[in-house]
């Protein structure tokens, strides 16, 4: 079995947002949407800090679909539009989606965005990878682990574009993969692990 995932080294993450931008571009993500957000944890402003000057700390945490093994969104979808593919990616069949948004209520990570309108793009043409389907209004969308790229053996765009090489991508089921090693050697943890959704995105550092 293949179970694709990403491990993110938070110490190497400087909040540069290259991953967020790369994702937006690659996946033709419309205005007002992000599949991949970089959060300044515990702060109410971007690049803020936790604590009182000068006793401060700051952690950036990129958050996108966690491609949970036990995905909450997948179970609740009434039409099976959300599914887990053979590579372990959580994906959406936009032709099935009825836009009920129960998946958005079910996702603990706010990873999904919805096409509330006919998507608006700036620039107003379809940018990014031509293999990525264009989504109509009324469907939910989210990170696909760059399905179109990873299926062809390419790296997800966020991994490719991360300037500090904070991201490691690979097969979690293969104990010898780089990503498995990173997770094992660094004691990487999952986001909201206590919920038991078993994310395939790991964080460490």
């Amino acid at each position, binding site marked *: 079995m293949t179970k694709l995932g990403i491990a993110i080294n938070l110490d190497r993450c*400087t909040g540069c947002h290259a991953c967020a931008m790369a994702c937006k571009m690659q996946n033709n993500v419309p205005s007002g949407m992000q599949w991949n957000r970089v959060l300044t944890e515990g702060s109410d*402003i971007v690049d803020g800090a*936790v604590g009182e000057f*000068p006793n401060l700390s700051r952690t950036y945490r990129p958050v996108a679909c966690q491609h949970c093994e036990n995905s909450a969104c997948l179970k609740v979808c009434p039409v099976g539009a959300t599914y887990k593919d053979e590579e372990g990616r959580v994906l959406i069949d936009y032709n099935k989606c009825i836009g009920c948004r129960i998946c958005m209520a079910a996702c603990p990570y706010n990873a999904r965005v919805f096409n509330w309108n006919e998507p608006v793009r700036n*620039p107003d*043409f379809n940018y990014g990878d031509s293999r990525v389907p*264009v989504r109509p209004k009324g469907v939910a969308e989210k990170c696909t682990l760059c399905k179109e790229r990873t299926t062809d053996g390419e790296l997800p765009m966020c991994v490719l*574009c991360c300037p500090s090489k904070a991201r490691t991508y690979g097969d979690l089921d293969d104990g010898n993969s780089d990503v498995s090693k990173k997770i094992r050697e660094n004691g990487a943890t999952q986001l909201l692990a206590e919920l038991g959704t078993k994310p395939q995105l790991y964080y460490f550092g």
Partner: protein
Amino acid sequence: MRKDSESGTLSRRSFLKSTGLAAGVLGFSGEGMLAVDNWLSPTKANAEVNEETRIMCHWFHCLGGCGHKCTVRDGRLVKIEPVEFEDGTRGRLCARGLSEVQHVYDVDRIQTPLKRVGERGEGKFEPISWEEAIKTIADAIKESQSKYGENSFYFRKSPEARTTTNVDFISKLLHADTGGLSGIDRGQANGSDPSGLTSNARTRSSIWDWENAGTILHIGSNILESSVVNMEAFFNAKEGGTKMIAVDPRFSTTASKCHQWLPIKPGTDASLLLAIVKIILDEKWYDESHILAKTSFPFLVDETTGEVLGRMEERTDSAGKVSQVKIPMVWDTVTESAQDHNAEGVVPALTGSYTVEDRKAITEFDLLKKQMSSYTPEWASEVCGIASDVIVDVADQYANNGPSTINYGFGGPDKYANADIVGHAASIMVALTGNSGKPGTGIGYTGYGNVNPAAAGVKSWPLPAEFAVSKNTVQLFDMPFKENNIHVGLTFGDSITLTTTDLNKTIDWVKTLDFFAVAEIYYSSTVPYADIVLPVCSKYECREEVNCVRTGVNYPDVYLTQQVIEPLFESKTDLEIEYLLAKEFGLEQHLPKSHEELAKFMLSEPKGNMEGFTYDVMRKAGVKRLLDSSEIVYGFKDGKYPTTSGKIELYYENKLEDKLAFPQYEDANEVYDANPLKEKYPLAFVQGKTRFSIHAYFSSAKWIQDYYGPLVQINPNDAAARGVKTGDDVKVFNDRGYFVCRVAVDGSIQPGMLFMAGLPYTHLYKEGTLQNVTNAYRSQRHYKLLFGSQIPFNDALVELVKA
């Protein structure tokens, strides 16, 4: 963009509407031109794909020079990826570069040549033809030059609106005044370059050499934001065990990723470094053998006059110029006499008082000790706010947990009136501890990353010798304040608001010019003051298939960049514009007629690390790694320094009259505790870099605007005292002027200071722009420095109130 109804003034966009242009020429906006076509068939991948990839080098002020592999679909730039090299490795890029997919098509692009129809600054224009625009500019230059002389024409190109490398012909062809030294980014270099340790502020060591360092001191360098594409080197070193220490008044991104952070008071870095020098001397943490062999510290100095003892010698440089140089002397412990420092068999004394030809002489080393005596850690602690035991600890780490590197930025301490003292003191730290000439050492600005030997064999387009710029007498930033002969100006990009302070005065000066034209890509801050505006292509656009040759700065690469897309709107490349202008003066025969001709010439003799990189090879490859790229570079391997003595020179005799032969602490101009002005304006106004822009560039990128806009940051206590909260509009002001923008209450900002990142276009502010409050101070002593007076961008006090 200002709301029209509220301010009562015309915004640019409403101007476009009111003059009927929205529907006409200018209305050819990003949105209008690129109307949604039938691609939007639901949930289908783009059918019939007509796409290919092109290679582009994204070279900018960030010095990234990143290779972009651009996907073009149906004539549109749709995707940017890092380039692939022959060895399978990939280049790097950052959020800014990626945002170009939108930014290139942004509505803030200048679309046609424009002629001003309102008052200067009002921003009212009407479109004109290229012919009319070029003729108007040429006529204005001709008139001014015939009336007031050749040097009455000011011309400058800044990297934003430069689209072709090696193109800067007009200034020379027309003998323009180019504004002289910019006064930017050489503040610390004024103190460190004379030592021979840095050149143009740059370190000689590659950022990839950081892995070999035991300790790295980041002084006012927020490299993780200002040089995003180099951050991998930072983390490789950190993970390899290098101790990272940041000196920064705010908890910058870099500070947050370092092991240790010294939250220094703004403008006081010199006191910290002087104290470290003293500690190293007192604790004998210096490297005596290095000092004796490689530095000027054993040189003898006249105790009374401060003059370095030595004999004059005639020297002929490589260009055949003859000059008198002093050969300093040392006390030779073998012969017990003063000898040339470079004489055979000399074993110099490090300390001691000697009498040489009836003059009382001591070594520079002893003089340094004497002069540093008052710079105790306790004193420095008072000045800079860092506890004295922390200062001692940092000195210990720098001196004893080596090899050590000093990484300084182009921000922070570089932007105060006392910047040269910082650079000088830091150089002394390096020289004392021997942190030079071996792996893991060095000092200087590292934003250039790789610091590989320059690509050999990229030729420059020559102009006949009679074409040269006029001798500059008044630097651009001084023009509003000093008598000058400039009557006509033409700039590529914004060289006004980005490179001057006290902007209201500068704008007043611009308004006095007989004629002012700007060639720009975007509606930047100076555009509203121009009489003629020319639309420039982005770097992705070119009429020809070949754009330009570009050698990497951060990377050991060389590019022959390709046309990514056709020029948008009516824009032209800078080469095309310069060619049109030259034609008006009958001088076009000196210029390359096409991008291809220029590129072919530049690559006509590839040699050295570019052996075989001919035009045809490069045409096919787009990008190639230089042949010697695998070597990790560090400076001064041969132990030779580019000074007259060949050693690291720390004693600057030419600054004797200012009592700065060795550094002495000097307060910044405005930002210091005892300044009485603090009662009126209690907050230090510090600006810096952000990962979301390069100076002003990317201000208009809509994808960037999701994260970044004009924003001033303030400490929570200062905010509470002023009754402001995150998201409020605030007015920041002093006697020089004001601006209004949003505020973020941010715990990472030191009490008593404000921070603002980047230089967003003026039209994005509610009112004004940040340069309205910055300081134009310079003292006479600054003009005598190696790089002349520096602009103290950070040396300003302000007050903030809720708008």
